[in-house]
């Protein structure tokens, strides 16, 4: 019961959480906060690019 749910939603939920962290962290400060934001927001972009262009 839990496993198919996890398989389906684990990646989307993780990416959504990273997106929110990225959006909020840069609001709080510069420097490290901006770096954290770039990493967290960059992950969904990287994941989308990777799977979108991947040849299997």
């Amino acid at each position, binding site marked *: 019961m839990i496993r*198919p749910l996890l398989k389906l939603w684990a990646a989307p939920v993780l990416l959504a959480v990273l997106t929110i962290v990225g959006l909020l962290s840069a609001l709080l400060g510069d420097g490290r906060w901006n770096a954290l934001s770039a990493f967290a927001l960059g992950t969904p972009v990287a*994941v989308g690019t990777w*799977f979108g262009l991947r040849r299997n």
Partner: protein
Amino acid sequence: MTPITIRRWAWIHKWSSLVCTAFMLLLCLTGLPLIYHHEIDGLLGNGVQAPQMAPDAPRADLDRVIAAGRAMYPNKMAMYVSQDVGEPDIWNLTLGDNPTDASYKSIAIDARTAQVLAQPSLEGGLMGVMYHLHVDLYAGLWGKLLLGAMGLLLLTAIVSGLVLYAPFMRKLDFGDVRRTRGPRLKWLDLHNLLGIVTLAWALVVGLTGVINTWAEPLLGYWQFTEMAEMTAPYKNLPPPMHLGSMQASLAHAVAAAPGMKIGFVAFPGTPFTSTHHYGIFMRGDSKLTSRLYRPVLVDAQTTQVTAQRALPWYLTALLISQPLHFGDYGGSPMKLIWSLLDLATIIVLGSGLYLWLKRGGAVKTEMKRSAANGAAVTATVEGSAAPALTAQGGEA
């Protein structure tokens, strides 16, 4: 989810998307250059820069600064004077024929020498066109509200797309793109992949965009309620004939809001203040609080502070939603990521449109295949979901 539920969500997804897609494509395309408007303005020579001076150079009297600007348009009245975060050497003065003049003049003045630096104009240029197409479609408040309504449809499309993600992806691993079984399946999978990875960002940018379209009504409500309360004692007084010193007003406002910096000043009669007050909007010092304003009302004749209070939650929400929509608060990496997410959204919109246009073909292929097999279409979730979109499309 039963096939009926899926069919209903598919109907919601299809119609909410179809109605807003053309607008959203326009917003994505015009938003892309707007992410880089500062850089583009600089390249086009429309940027304003103050000459280098010693950092401790004395500041010019603000009344002199305002007088220098007004001398260029003696028949116009001052509407606003403001200072950008990180640009303490420049005052931006706005002049108009009346306190709500939409075709106002903007003048940049050196904060140390009170010399006019430039007259940056949004109108006429390429970025002005992008701005209007993105914000109000050249139709003022109604254009904004229309785009806001389209934004609400986008949010509906995103949420219904999220609901449909489950039945469409049940048989696939995350990120699977079926490339060898025809273009429709390939684009369906890409639509789902890019839709799900950009989901949270698109929800936030969509929602904050919608909130931004309500800026004028929100401001109007604030004026009608809180501003009216703050200026109640002045209600029946005639408008001031002579305006007092802005420099003195500013000093009193700074003393009344210790630790804060000046964001902008609204002249009497403009939507941000009363007909009797300078509305001096102070802002905090940190990255977050520099986005938030605290209005301090100064009697425009006596230059004394008469009231101040924090902004209500809905205007705070409006101010916070601005950076979250613009993507201008995390340096150049964030701008790049914003552009890439914008491009991904264009692909999601385009592929969605493609999938709808190709709906008939998919149904025919499916029917041919089942006829050739001489068997009923297997009732897999995927099999029931994909025609749900297309069968409904056929009826419409």
